[in-house]
Each structure stands twice: as structure tokens, then as C-alpha cells.
């Protein structure tokens, strides 16, 4: 029962979010590439923690006529605004030498468009809400996916072993799921968080501010390193009330000119740090490795959708429209127990063949077992799920079987589907065979027939035997 819920939820989530999720993944992939390229530019300083604020301030003093502001971007660029020999300038600087690396130029319009699209689909606030919901759905998708995966392969521990799956799409889906569960979950979480943050959900938290008397506490610029800093604003003029504003990642100091004594220290509320953390997790802008993982995860999402679609198209859509055909009139009832739809496909084929042979055929899932007034023959096609368990549309069969006595005596045959690479090959079908044999008015047409990896040849030999027996 639960398995069915996970599968249905996973499918509906994927189906409902597919278009937007696809757009977000593709644009996210392009932005990942941008983040990677940005980290290879000369202005990306890879060891900000090695430069103290003091050395950087001194280096700039020797090279600039006047500095207005130093800021350190999420991409680890050190940006200076001020007046040099060439006039007012805005440039990336080498924090060690204080020399210009490059001028700040507007970011490429292409990436800017992609970014805007990724954030809001060009729909401003409406789009932001949609993207936020998609991010939230992505969290649910990864969680339902994980449950499904764990059941499919027979337990969480199996995650660390090789996949035994044969079908290429299913195999890809499983492998991607193993590798990218955590990155995808984090992308969803941070994306959703950033959207909520954007709509001012956390304004109730206040900063904590301390003030100090002049000279009470001196800020030691040697102990502050560039990786702690967001921005340093210089005093506007020499006036006494004009101060340095030193914004760190988690607090901001106002500092007096001359002796660098601290006048106030404002510690940001926790959500400020959470936002930075989520921004980093979502963009990986300051770290090549994280950016690479995120880029691959965005690409993986596209493959998830493609392989997911391939797995789904045949089965889930069919399963939604259950065929409750003339079960009351049928002399041959075909029952299937399937998780992924393969047994169902074979069951449909069998029904078609038997109808051609002029049998009146009923087709339904094992869970729909009930009293079949005219049935003389019951044919069961059953897959095994995970660790020898019943598939989701067969888990209530045993109960229903014991409570529905058939009016006629029944001949039955069971066809088990499975894979020999799993230890409990066709276990569910074996259990069914034992269960039915115990019933008084049930007799087996032939021994249990097992099929490895959906072998067509084996299926036809069983089908041939069944047709002969029914003549």
C-alpha cells in the first residue's frame, strides 16, 4: 500500500512540475557553467584568508589617491571604488599588491538574462513564487524518490552496492538517484529558502548592537582577513562623525578614523547567516568544487526527467485507467501483480491472445481479487518487489483471497517475473503458488513457471502451454 503511495506521489510531483523543473534545471546548468568560468578569471582570489585587512588597506593607500570602498563579492573578487591616477574607477584588485587586475564591467547580458529567468522566469514576483514552489516540490521529489529507490533495491544499505537493474533507463534513473540525492535535495532546499527569504519572511529577527566609548576597544586590522569581509566603506570626509564601516559576514563595525577604535558593533540576526549559507549552497559561486557538483546536479535533473519519462510513459498512464472488463462473465481471469508495469504489459498480451482463441477473458490486478462467478481458470502474472515482497498492486491479495471463496473449482497457473541477480528470485510468485495450492477447490495446471529478466521466449513457451491446457 505505502509503496503505491510513494510511487504515485513521485509520479504526480514529477508530472506536475516537469515543465518548470526542466526550465529551471537547464538555466541552472548554464549558470553553473558561468560560476565555473568566473572562478577561472584572474580576479578570483583563491586564498582570501591569507590576506589581512591591514595589508590590503596599506597596499591600496600606496596605489590610490583616494579609496571610497572595498567590497568582496560572493565570487571571491576584491572590488575597489576610488580615485586613481586615471580618475574615478571601479575595478578588481590584487589584495596583496593593491594593483588593478581588471575594470569592473557589466556582466554579460546573456548570463544576466539566464539568471533573471532562473529566478523568476521573466515573470517578476509571479515567477518567483512559481520557482519557489518548484524548489519545494524538488525537495518532495527527492524524498519520495529516495523511499522508492530504497524499496526498489531492497533496503537503504543496498544504496552502497552496485545496481542490478537491466533496463538502461531504469538503471540510469537509479544510479543518478544514488549519486545526486543529496545535491538535488540541497538545491531544492536552498532554492525554496531563498524564495521565502526574498518575500521577507524573517523580518521579525533583530540585530544585536553594542556601542563602545572612544578608545575603549581598538579594532586590530591584522586579525581580520579578507574572507571574513563583505565590505569596507571609508569615511566620506575628515569630519569627526565620519567613520569606517567594516561589514563582516556576520557583523558590522563602525570604526573611528585615526585610531581605529570601535564605536559600535552590530551582530546580524541568524537568518542573515542562513541566507548567505543558502546562497552559497545554491550557487557555489565562491568554490569551484561546489559549483561543479551543482552544475552536474542540474544536468542530472535533466537526465532524471528524461529517464523518468521513459520509465513512466508505458506503465503509469495505463495503470491510471484500470480495466475492469467483464470480470463477472469471464471464464478465464488474468491477475497481475506489477510494480513497474512489465507484468501488466504481458498480462494484456495474454488477454489479447486468449480472446483470439475465443475465451471470455477478464483482466485485473491481484488486489482486485474477489468472487468471479463464472471463472474456471485463473492465470496469475506476478513480479516480485524488492526483497521478495508483493508489488504495490498485490499487497492485499492474500487477505482478499482468503475471504473470497470461488463458486466453481478453479484451475490455475502462475507465471513469476524476476531477475536472477536478486537473491529472492520470484519469491512472491513462489509464495502465491503455495497459497493457492493449499486451497481445496484450486488445482494447479502446471508447476510454477519463472521468467528471468522478462525473457520473451520463456513467456511464449508458457503462453503456448496455457493455450494447450485450455483447449
Amino acid at each position, binding site marked *: 500500500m505505502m509503496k503505491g503511495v510513494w510511487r504515485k506521489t513521485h509520479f504526480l510531483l514529477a508530472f506536475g512540475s516537469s515543465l518548470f523543473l526542466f526550465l529551471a534545471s537547464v538555466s541552472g546548468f548554464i549558470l553553473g557553467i558561468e560560476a565555473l568560468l568566473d572562478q577561472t578569471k584572474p580576479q578570483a582570489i583563491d586564498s582570501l584568508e591569507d590576506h589581512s585587512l591591514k595589508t590590503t588597506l596599506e597596499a591600496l593607500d600606496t596605489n590610490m589617491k583616494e579609496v571610497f570602498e572595498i567590497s568582496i563579492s560572493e565570487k571571491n573578487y576584491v572590488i575597489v571604488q576610488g580615485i586613481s591616477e586615471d580618475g574615478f574607477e571601479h575595478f578588481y584588485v590584487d589584495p596583496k599588491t593593491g594593483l588593478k587586475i581588471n575594470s*569592473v564591467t557589466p556582466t554579460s547580458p546573456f548570463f544576466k538574462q539566464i539568471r533573471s529567468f532562473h529566478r523568476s522566469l521573466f515573470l517578476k514576483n509571479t515567477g518567483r513564487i512559481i520557482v519557489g514552489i518548484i524548489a519545494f516540490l524538488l525537495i518532495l521529489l527527492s524524498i519520495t524518490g529516495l523511499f522508492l529507490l530504497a524499496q526498489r533495491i531492497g533496503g537503504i544499505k543496498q544504496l552502497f552496492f552496485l545496481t542490478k537493474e537491466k533496463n538502461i533507463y531504469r538503471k540510469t534513473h537509479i544510479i543518478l538517484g544514488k549519486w545526486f540525492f543529496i545535491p538535488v535535495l540541497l538545491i531544492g532546499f536552498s532554492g525554496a529558502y531563498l524564495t521565502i527569504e*526574498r518575500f521577507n519572511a524573517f523580518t521579525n529577527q533583530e540585530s544585536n548592537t553594542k556601542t563602545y566609548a572612544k578608545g575603549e576597544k581598538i579594532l586590530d586590522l591584522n586579525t581580520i582577513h579578507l574572507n571574513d569581509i563583505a565590505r569596507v566603506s571609508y569615511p566620506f570626509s575628515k569630519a569627526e562623525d565620519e567613520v569606517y564601516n567594516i561589514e563582516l559576514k556576520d557583523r558590522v563595525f563602525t570604526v573611528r578614523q585615526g585610531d581605529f577604535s570601535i564605536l559600535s558593533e552590530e551582530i546580524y540576526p541568524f537568518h542573515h547567516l542562513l541566507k548567505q549559507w543558502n546562497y552559497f549552497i545554491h550557487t557555489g559561486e565562491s568554490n569551484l568544487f561546489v559549483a561543479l557538483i551543482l552544475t552536474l546536479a542540474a544536468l542530472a535533473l535533466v537526465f532524471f526527467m528524461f529517464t523518468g519519462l521513459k520509465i513512466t510513459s508505458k506503465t503509469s498512464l495505463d495503470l491510471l485507467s484500470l480495466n475492469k472488463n467483464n470480470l463477472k462473465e469471464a471464464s478465464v481471469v488474468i491477475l497481475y501483480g506489477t510494480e513497474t508495469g512489465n507484468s501488466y504489459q504481458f498480462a494484456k498480451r495474454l488477454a489479447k491472445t486468449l480472446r483470439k482463441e475465443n475465451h471470455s477473458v477478464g483482466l485485473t490486478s491481484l488486489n482486485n481479487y474477489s468472487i468471479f462467478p463464472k471463472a474456471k481458470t485463473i492465470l496469475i502474472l506476478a513480479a516480485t518487489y524488492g526483497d521478495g515482497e508483493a508489488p504495490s498492486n498485490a499487497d492485499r491479495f492474500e487477505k482478499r483471497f482468503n475471504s473470497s471463496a470461488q463458486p466453481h473449482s478453479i484451475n490455475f497457473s502462475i507465471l513469476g517475473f524476476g531477475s536472477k541477480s536478486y537473491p529472492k528470485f520470484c519469491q512472491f510468485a513462489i509464495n502465491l503458488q503455495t497459497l493457492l495450492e493449499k486451497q481445496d477447490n484450486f488445482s494447479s495446471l502446471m508447476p510454477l513457471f519463472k521468467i528471468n529478466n522478462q525473457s520473451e521466449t520463456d513467456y511464449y513457451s508458457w503462453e503456448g502451454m496455457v493455450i494447450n491446457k485450455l483447449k
Partner: protein
Amino acid sequence: MQSFFKILLISFLLFFFPIDKEVEIKCLVEIMDYRGEGAYFVISVLDEEENYIKTVYVLGDDKSWFSEMKAFWINLRKNNLFSDEDFYPLIDGISGPTISGGERRVFQIKVPKNLFNNGYLLRFETAVEDKAYHMNDINIALSTESLKQAHMGQGFIKKIQFIATE
């Protein structure tokens, strides 16, 4: 050879008729405390009748939002200055990101000397995505006296101060 003479002629002209000197103005802009997207702003010189003369500073590098600064944008439209090649050189300080609520920013603008102390006005237009647009957030005389004072804004600008070097 011809181009050599051209260069010679231009150098000669520049030497004897120097182009108008510029006044350098250091500006400190403090933004009101609000949450949400950063503010864009445009600083332009207007004549007494508030006709556009020249844009001297633009903050915010996403061109798609410039149309929100309607007065500035209409001026660009009138003069057909849309393409990047025409647009960017026109603005002396296109300088990356926007400025967020509660932040302050220091920058320098340059104004031709003949516009200074001559009845011209300095206008600050501001806009914040999905919040509001203020055509005359600050609109003050472009004169020595006026720039000595701090000015309060009408919209997103809390306060602005200048240091002018003539």
C-alpha cells in the same frame, strides 16, 4: 600622411583651446532602510526648465531595469541612444551592482564647469523593482552653495552629501 596631419591639427587645437574643465564632485548617498531588491539610480544635469542636458552617473548594471527610470529613459529614447555602444559611453560611471536598503555608497561624478553655478539643476532619479519610482528623489541647484549642504531625499534616498573640487 593625411592622418598624421589630422592628429597634428587636433593636438594643436587641443593645446590652444582646451576643452571645458570639469568639476569633480564626491557624493555620499545613503539609502532608506527597506528590504527587497536594490535601488537603481540615475544622476542627470537639467537646465532651468528641467530639460535634460546630460546624464553623469548610473548605478545598477541591469539595463532591462533602466526603463523604470522613466524621465531618463524618455531622454534616451528621444535621442535614440539604445544600443550598448551608444548607451554605455554616455554614462560615466556604470558601476555594477545596485545599492540595497540601509546601505551607503560613495562615488565621484564629473560635471562640465560651464554647467556649474549657472542655474543648472542636479536630479537624482531612483527606482526599486516592484516598489516605486521617484523622478525627483533629489532635485537641487548645481552650485557651490547648494552642494555644501546635506540634502534629504523624497524617495529611496535618505540623505546625500557632496564635496566639490573645482
